[in-house]
């Protein structure tokens, strides 16, 4: 059913919180995402011309880098982009087949690859470019929030997290229930002022982005260092210095 589930208060909203302050743009999340999802719920993730010029493929996570601001205040920000598991996403309602759906129990947005006709309309309806067509199978693919990890009882509990979150070397990615104000992720969002992407489109993204922290204001003016014993060339004076500072 492509009608959206009714939102009830206290509804579970699983999603990611991405820290733009600590992301170093290493592409580890994108790479581990590709690796895990090539054989999981959405596998295979095709690559076109993988061994020649023009190699490309389906990825659920793409890490951009931007420059923001000018001059001394400008900075480089690395920016991972994936499905935001929006609360009111048109990618679900436009789907003619019911293949694109939002789960009532946790809000994850998924595609049923057995009924998708590959019309591509949902990719047009997503403002964030979170859906990519598998042109081999002719069906739409997208981030599943690692649905095959987070509920997977055959792997150790500590690993029941999305692949991107587990692999991030700077801990810039956090996973949890954003519908529960007491969850770690919700507290993090509240403490750091988590942002929505393109709120003006009204899709109400669940994933939040933590803004880069403000830089400390201009560094302290450099101070001349006090001379050390070795800066004193005259051996007599050096001896005196040693004795006097004892």
């Amino acid at each position: 059913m492509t009608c959206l589930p009714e939102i009830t208060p206290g509804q579970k909203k699983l999603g990611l919180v991405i820290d733009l302050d600590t992301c170093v743009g290493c592409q580890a999340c994108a790479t581990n995402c590709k690796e895990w999802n090539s054989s999981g719920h959405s596998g295979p993730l095709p690559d076109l011309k993988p061994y020649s010029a023009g190699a490309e493929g389906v990825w659920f996570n793409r890490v951009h880098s931007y420059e923001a601001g000018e001059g001394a205040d400008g900075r480089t920000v690395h920016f991972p982009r994936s499905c935001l598991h929006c609360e009111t996403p048109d990618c679900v309602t436009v789907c003619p087949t019911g293949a694109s759906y939002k789960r009532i129990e946790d809000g994850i947005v998924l595609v049923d690859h057995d009924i998708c006709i590959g019309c591509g309309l949902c990719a047009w309806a997503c403002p964030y470019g979170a859906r990519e067509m598998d042109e081999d199978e002719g069906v739409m693919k997208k981030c599943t929030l690692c649905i095959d990890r987070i509920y997977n009882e055959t792997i150790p509990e500590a690993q029941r997290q999305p692949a991107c979150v587990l692999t991030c070397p700077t801990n810039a990615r956090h996973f949890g229930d954003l519908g529960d104000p007491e969850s770690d992720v919700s507290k993090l969002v509240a403490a750091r002022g988590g942002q929505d992407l393109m709120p003006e489109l009204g899709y109400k993204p669940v994933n939040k982005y933590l803004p880069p922290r403000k830089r400390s204001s201009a560094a302290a003016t450099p101070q001349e260092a006090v001379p050390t014993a070795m800066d004193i060339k005259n051996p007599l004076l050096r001896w005196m210095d040693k004795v006097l500072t004892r």
Partner: protein
Amino acid sequence: MNPAPSIVFFTTASGAGYGLLFWLGLLRPLGIVPATPAFALVCLVLALLLITAGLVSSMLHLGNPTRAWRAFSQWRSSWLSREGVAAVVTYVPAIGFGAALLADLPGLATLAGLLAAVGAAVTVWCTAMIYASLKPIRQWHHPLVAPGYLLLAGYSGMALLAGVSALGGVVGGPASFIITLGLAALVLKLAYWRMIDGGDPVATAESATSLGFIGKVRPLDPPHTESNYLLREMGFRIARKHAASLRTIVLVGGFAAPILLALLATQIGGGVALPALALGALLALAGLLVERWLMFAEATHTVTLYYSGR
């Protein structure tokens, strides 16, 4: 947006077919077009051929055409699904119309024709709403898009109807309709182009990245060095000067020329009417193909904000 030939052909051909079906069902009872069953049958077959060719072409666009039947299920939320349902339902009165004509049941033919006209209008409306409801594409999520689809379907359908009417010796009524509809379409397209040229973007690189509080946002490193589905499908951009010359082609070839030819047909009549109206219909259809191509080529999607910053 990438102007996929299958979709450009689909919306133009089916639009003209539904337009023809609409006017046939509506104007035949009013006596504005030839009343003979032969005339109605020729128009009906032409309309159904165009509609069917368009629908088949749109199915070829799918990744999994054999599952197309699944698209009838989500009419509660999806305009694409509604379009599919409306298209199939419209075949029922359209074929009934033909059967009633063949069986010489004029009352039933009129009723089925009117129902087919309603179905045609509803189907074109649903097609238009597929585009008009997409918020990330500001040139489509625009109040003139759906009326434009209806008007252009009506205009091209009328151009075809006038051509076939001229074969049956009736010129005046349909030709004057072409002039009215053509002028209305021309004004609408001019207004639409003016509005999309000046319109504000729906979002900015700053809001797309949430980094606006730092300052202006510029892409530095792309996430991938080669192309991908997103860039091929939504990254298509047309140069401003090409768009301008294609707009002129649409205005002159697609609207002005058929209008003048229709005027010629009404004023001079006789042997000139048929070739003038036939040529006018061909020009209108060709012009609308260009118009539909431009409709895609000029549309921009918010995902390009992430890649090019605009």
